[in-house]
């Protein structure tokens, strides 16, 4: 990837947020008028336990440069265990994508509680910076191949 394209590269990041903690935390960031980069687009699910790790793959294929999954801190899951399942599934998927040559900076996970509006901002900044550093997703992104 040429340096020029990296310069000014604004990554597109798809985030899956659980309704009870992280989505509420992101709402709090809003209510508190905390400013953060606009690169992250949120899909709300009830629990991170709903997020199939293949969603990550799918997002990277469909054009996302990075994916974030964010849920309640361990022990705080509204459904008690969902984030624990998610943690296992994501650890494996993230390791695997890294093994295929997808930079782990593209596949992120965080625990953000309903009271952590400022942590949400920090998470976004770190994720966006990380993806910016590795550039556009160029491995198995769905391109119009031989069309």
């Amino acid at each position, binding site marked *: 990837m040429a340096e020029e394209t990296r310069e000014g590269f604004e990554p*597109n990041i*798809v985030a899956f947020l659980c*309704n009870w903690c992280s*989505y*509420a935390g*992101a*709402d709090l*960031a*809003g*209510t508190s*008028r*905390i*400013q*953060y980069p*606009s690169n992250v*687009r*949120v*899909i*709300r*699910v*009830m*629990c991170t*336990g*709903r*997020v*199939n*790790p293949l*969603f990550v793959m*799918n*997002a990277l*294929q*469909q*054009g*996302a440069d990075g994916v974030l999954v964010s849920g309640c801190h361990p022990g705080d899951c*509204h*459904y*008690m*265990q*969902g984030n624990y*399942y*998610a943690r296992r*599934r994501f650890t494996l998927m993230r390791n695997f994508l890294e093994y295929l040559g997808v930079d782990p900076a593209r596949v992120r996970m965080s625990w953000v509680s309903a009271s952590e509006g400022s942590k949400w*901002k920090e998470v976004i900044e770190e994720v966006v910076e990380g993806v910016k550093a590795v550039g556009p997703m160029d491995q198995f992104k769905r391109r119009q191949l031989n069309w």
Partner: protein
Amino acid sequence: MNGRPKIGVYICHCGINIAHTVDVDEVVKFASTLPDVIVARDYRYMCSDPGQALIVEDINNMGLNRVVVASCSPRMHEPTFRKTLITAGLNPYFLEMANIREQCSWVHEDKIAGTEKAKRLVESAVVKVRRLEPLEVKEVDVEPSALIIGAGIAGIQAALDIADAGFKVYLVEKTPSVGGHMAQLDKTFPTLDCSACILTPKMVDVANHPNIELLTYSQVEDISGYVGNFEVKVRKKSRFVDVDKCTGCGACAEVCRQAGRIPNEFDEGLGMRGAIYIPFPQAVPAKYTIDKENCLFLSRGKCGESPKCQEACEAGAINFELQDEIVEFKVGTIIVATGFDIFDARKKPEYAYGVYDNVVNALEFERLVSASGPTGGNVVIPQRGKKKKKKEDEEELGPVIPKNITFIQCVGSRDKSVGNEYCSRVCCMYTAKQAHLVKDKIPDAEITIFYMDVRAFGKGYEEFYDRVRREGIRYIRGNPSEIFKRGDKLVVKAEDTLTATPLEHETDMVVLSVGLEPRSDRREIIDILKLSSSPDLFYLEAHPKLRPVDTATDGIFLAGCCQGPKDIPDAVGQAKGAASAAMILLASGKVKVEAQTSVVDEATCRGCGFCVEVCPYSAIELVEINRAGWPVMVARVNEALCKGCGACSAACLSGSIQQRSFRDTQILPQIEVLGVK
């Protein structure tokens, strides 16, 4: 359903909250180009009455069947707009919100970027709403009765409260009598009222209450169903005594050939009983029970010429043919109050419990100081099990009264080496109480208490601790490392950590203030009710702060020490809380269930049970169906239990179980529009 989707998109300015960084006109223009969007409008305040009226009007005039509202967080106004849809006669689940305020206009100052993001979020909502399906909010009836498992003080209190409110209660107790651990106690801290005196009236009440069906010496075998409709199966173990005939006279126990040979559980093995017995004089019901393992007739088929008890019973109540009985009934709600076990001090071999007779645990000591106990309330050094073995020529030694008694706190609590990190919450106080009782009975006794910290947090506790200390009881801060015998004396080796001095303390008797542990048979209930455990292995509440008596499963509540160590007032308080939570269901007679539940495609489900395993609510079970003549297992969701978390959907490899409103077919298009720039 309603044929082709006809979508209305409503973009809110929220005064200037949204409009100042999002170009609302541009978003409206963009939205109106999206597939199946019939109308896109903006309004100053969508949530206002006129704003909502706008939506209702469009639904009525334009035949909209899907609505997207782009405004604030759905956590704020989703219920509002769902109601709007209902007003217009549309299913409330045909709504999707795009959060362009909290997660867009309020956090991005750049108008271009903010507008661009708002467009994406609106498009994401549009592609999702196209694929939404109508959902039904269901209600189920609640059977007006409750099951309470465990008849200690917590179970008893909960039973009485619910029964007093007019609902039927089934109170199931594993042992022959109600009462639990509280019945074993002598006096209670900090008020020193006699435990039996305050407990036994309640015990009698549960036996006599017209709304309570007491099932003692019984065990829950199986529970199926869900909130409002549990089917319960209880095994009433055979007592071999016809309880209708037994008068509780005790003639049988006197003549039993095993009398005085079997350690009595109630006295923690310090006293003896026969094979036919009543655990303690005030037992409820006051009916005798034959312990079939120890009954000569039942275990060996022969008891002398004939069983003496049978001869002695004038009522003819003893019947060796009696079998276990299975009782089945339905309840609407369940309270688990199964209590605790005490820590087995043998797991701390350095304290030599089980090695020396004069090392006892606190519950044994409780029986020793109790007037109803094996020594009639005299504090003596117990001689367990040895009495009968004495050689003929040996002189019968009189009871030895200890003059120096040492208590050690935190045995099996706050101790990672035995796997119990938690504080048992009662030991500091019961130790102080026991020290006080000794002082009462042996005024010249020297009493020492080794402690780590003294936690006297309850009402009147600190005052009581202060009073005990002033009675001349010595508190040494330090955890003893070893107990050994030197001559007649026990030596407690420790370090006084306040002065950093190692010390060897000689004493006549050591009382180990053992902690409270989850019951060793805790898995029985876990398996039947699919309860979860917290890391300390006590049963897990639904939320540590806001739902402390609820479990993850609707309609099942926790009371007493099965959820964690508690003193009596806390156990009673929680029992009343659990009873009240149960009564909310019982009184309303109906319970609403989640609409965004999971659903199984039985044609493709392979019955692997992954979803069954992950479901925190035990809402999914495998059932056999007939698939074109073949019996196959598939998952089935009990919608009354499903809470709509969707963990099952992510666990399913074949995509056969899907969460309504969060299906793969609904989420993947969102990913697509958010991904493709």
